């Protein structure tokens, strides 16, 4: 784990116009989806971003993937602010930073074969022969415990868990340095969730790739991440190592989150039936 900062958000703010209308005209003010957030991801580091819906974590993810522009503040890639990236640097960014999204139904193009889906990052960048692409696709599929022959099938033939594996294969194929995963297991069944979490952890360990895990589930983040940031209403309210943070949280929101996590243990659960209402 080096100390090179791969990707960094520096005092990032993202405003959206207020959707409420009053008498036909837009109401004043904006929604601060991301409110002065600073976050750094080092090479080989596993960072968790945890929060509930509407806290801005997905927006932050899109900003860090350079899929949207911050209203204020900057995203830095290897030290260079995003607006100053040359075309070559941007192409390098696109190779090195890959996303995995939550919804397996919408994150794979239903009209493309799995092979084309997985190989898209390679085809988009060009410069590879068909044979090379086929080989890398087969490797990527096997890395996620699918078969090379699955490349000829369509997404609809696969279960939810398998589709998520396809999405992970797609993220891995360009040998990225950083993978951003937005709720990678939330929509999966419990037993599939465990399989995919194990896969993600093994990928993180073996490929030594940095990861940004975004989740609303504390236990997922505990299992996968070295450091965790807790996000609420667009701000990061607390950060730390999961072991310490979950044992003694400082911020009341973190406490609320922890109390709201329901373990599969009746005695324990009854003790925490009344979490503090924020």
């Amino acid at each position, binding site marked *: 784990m080096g100390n090179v900062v791969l990707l960094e958000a520096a005092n990032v703010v993202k405003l959206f116009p207020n959707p409420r209308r009053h008498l036909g005209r837009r109401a004043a003010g904006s929604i601060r989806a991301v409110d002065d957030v600073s976050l750094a991801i080092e090479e080989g580091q596993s960072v968790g971003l945890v929060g509930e819906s509407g806290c801005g974590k997905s927006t932050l993810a899109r900003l860090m993937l350079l899929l949207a522009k911050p209203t204020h503040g900057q995203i830095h890639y290897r030290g260079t602010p995003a607006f100053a990236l040359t075309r070559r640097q941007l192409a390098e960014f696109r190779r090195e930073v890959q996303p995995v999204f939550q919804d397996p139904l919408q994150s794979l193009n239903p009209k493309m074969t799995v092979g084309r889906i997985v190989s898209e990052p390679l085809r988009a960048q060009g410069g590879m022969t068909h044979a090379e692409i086929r080989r890398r696709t087969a490797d990527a599929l096997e890395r996620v415990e699918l078969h090379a022959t699955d490349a000829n099938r369509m997404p609809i033939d696969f279960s939810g868990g398998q589709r998520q594996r396809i999405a992970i294969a797609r993220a891995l194929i360009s040998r990225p340095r950083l993978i951003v995963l937005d709720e990678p297991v939330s929509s999966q069944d419990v037993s599939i969730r*465990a399989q995919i979490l194990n896969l993600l952890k093994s990928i993180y360990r073996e490929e030594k790739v940095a990861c940004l895990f975004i989740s609303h589930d504390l236990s997922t983040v505990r299992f996968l991440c070295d450091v965790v940031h807790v996000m609420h209403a667009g701000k990061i309210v607390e950060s730390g190592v999961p072991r310490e943070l979950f044992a003694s949280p400082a911020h009341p929101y973190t406490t609320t989150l922890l109390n709201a*996590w329901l373990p599969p243990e*009746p005695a324990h659960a009854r003790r925490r039936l009344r979490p503090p209402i924020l």
Partner: protein
Amino acid sequence: MTAPPHAKGHEPLLDVRGLSVAFPGRQGWIPVVEDMDVRIMPGEVVGIVGESGCGKSSLALALLGLLPRWAGARVTGQAFFDGAELLSLDPKAMRRVRGDRIAMIPQDPMGALNPLFAVGSQVEEAILAHGRANGAQPRKQALELLGSVRLDDPETRARQYPHELSGGMRQRVVGAIAMAGGPDLLIADEPTTALDVTVQAQYLDLLRDLQRSRGLSILFITHDLGVVATLCDRVIVMYAGRKVEEASVSDLFASPRHWYTRALLDSVPPLLEDRDELATIPGTPPRPESTLAGCRFAPRCPNGAAKCREEEPVLAAAGESSVCRCWFPLPERHRDG
């Protein structure tokens, strides 16, 4: 049709026997729910836990006669509710039971609420529909109901439309509508799956209170083991359309007897411990169309014996009030203290 007499003099509110649901397929009927028995006593909270495709939602819909007609489902078995047999009721009679005696809370509140009407009027409509309006005060009753589901500022909220409310608030409104008829049994189909974790905690709190104060029975369907542990008195574990285990909550979590149940419990990542790797169940649940001989869990079971693959196990008693469908159930774990 009258229900068979009950031994202890304590009659179950809901007594489902041998309920099976099948859908038409290319080569005959595809079983989605097979031979399910569910018994709920008055004031009891029973959870049905299982993963997607195990048939738990179809079970709930079948009980209320809500399976979509175009699907052409075939429902067999019996379901006695307070003496009356549900599955043989004609649609009109079923409508009277629905909402009045048995209410349903679906997973998606936006689907249950009409986007064109303010939520207050939808609650009023439910009150009027079930003839519970006393005098000319349905408005007041609606506000009371909204207050009873802990919706802040019911006056203002009643005038708002579903899309103006958050997911948690919508689910509370759906709860108010469900309670409008004063039901004895609430069937909740994954009501908190789409909610944030803190909102879920508050909602479960609310359900527990409602249940205690009104003696409500709840059939709670979920895939979340933590929710079951928090809210339910008894649990039924479903796998591939069948009941594989049933026990009280304390028994099930402390000492699961079925291999699937245990594997499920083991695969949840702990919050307060570091783990290198999670215990997983290899493979995926069988598709309803597949015809397997023997135990449906056998292909994935760490204890796959020859008998398991040849003969399907039957439900057998596994303790005082537990049952388990396994030829080689796990030994009972004795709890300390």
